[in-house]
């Protein structure tokens, strides 16, 4: 009887790693104790998301904010005049070339591995086609908050938060089909996006003030 030597542990190890990667894809988790605690980043996020404006009245500031969001392609989905609250959304494609390349490469190498293992008599499939981002909804939540009112109008603080929901396309793991629609959520913390929004709002506040 001939003993099978080296290749066995190699194949087992590769398959185990693939299974592990496929099954436990979750990252580190935040514990419930941390949900309501301020973090060192809280202050930095606040200053990135907040600007102050001088305006004769809060309604004008809110309508200028809605106009700025419209300029950036958002649809206003919710509004509350008394609290100076606006929520807006826009839908866009989320496809990225980098992700599609890595999907293609993973699919290619896992197929190759399956073919190699099949040549050794294995019937199981290690083919893995990771789902890629397909569609996204970008959301904005805005609050215009009065600070103090003087003789020549009031000062307001506008805080806006952008975030996005991403839906993934279909994929495959072994013989199991991964249906499309897996959802991912993400806060947008790119300072440039906030700067661009406030530049628009500045312009729109000016236009509103001058009634142009």
């Amino acid at each position: 009887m001939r003993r099978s030597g080296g290749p066995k542990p190699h194949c087992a190890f590769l398959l185990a790693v693939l299974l592990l990667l496929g099954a436990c894809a979750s990252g580190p988790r935040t514990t419930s104790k941390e949900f309501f605690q301020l973090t060192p980043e809280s202050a930095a996020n606040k200053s990135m998301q907040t600007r102050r404006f001088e305006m004769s009245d809060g309604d004008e500031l809110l309508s200028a904010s809605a106009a700025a969001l419209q300029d950036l392609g958002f649809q206003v989905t919710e509004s509350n005049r008394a609290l100076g609250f606006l929520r807006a959304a826009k839908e866009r494609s989320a496809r990225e070339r980098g992700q599609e390349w890595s999907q293609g490469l993973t699919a290619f190498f896992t197929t190759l591995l399956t073919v190699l293992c099949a040549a050794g008599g294995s019937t199981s499939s290690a083919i893995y086609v990771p789902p890629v981002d397909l569609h996204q909804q970008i959301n904005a939540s805005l609050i215009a908050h009065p600070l103090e009112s003087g003789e020549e109008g009031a000062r307001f603080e506008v805080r806006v938060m952008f975030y996005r929901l991403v839906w993934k396309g279909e994929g495959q793991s072994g013989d199991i089909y991964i249906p499309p629609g897996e959802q991912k959520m993400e806060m947008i913390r790119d300072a440039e996006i906030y700067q661009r929004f406030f530049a628009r709002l500045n312009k729109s506040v000016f236009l509103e003030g001058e009634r142009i």
Partner: protein
Amino acid sequence: MIDHLFSRVLRLRPRAVVTTLVVAVVVGLGGCASPPEVEPVNLFASAEEQMKMRNMQTRTFDVSDRTTAIRGVIQGLQDLGFIIERANEPLGIVTGARFAEPNYYDVVGVTVTVRSAAEGRMTIRVNALFNNEPITDPEVYRDFFATLERSFFIGRS
């Protein structure tokens, strides 16, 4: 190199491959510990438990009017990184959510209600959910009210 690997794999016998798969599956399953068993949830908790939850979730603050209190709640939630989803001034209800970063698959949701208890005193109640399950840790609510206190203090000064 590839030829060498290929020839080594070809030399594998079916039984070796089956053993390989069994080992792989066992290792794969062992890697992910199964979630802990959840006891059947009592949907209608006893009055005592409800009282305990309510006390934990409620606090009264010295705030002159309701709109100021609601604005304070909104600012406090925003400071904690919550997205304001809905705000109703006449009813004094604010709902918000945040992602349990850095994990983007878990969501924390809050509903805050503001009611006036007496002249210049507002009762604020908060319900927090983690992935649609109520948070019962009193420390979480204490943290929330500490942030709220700070937010009212800043608003006043």
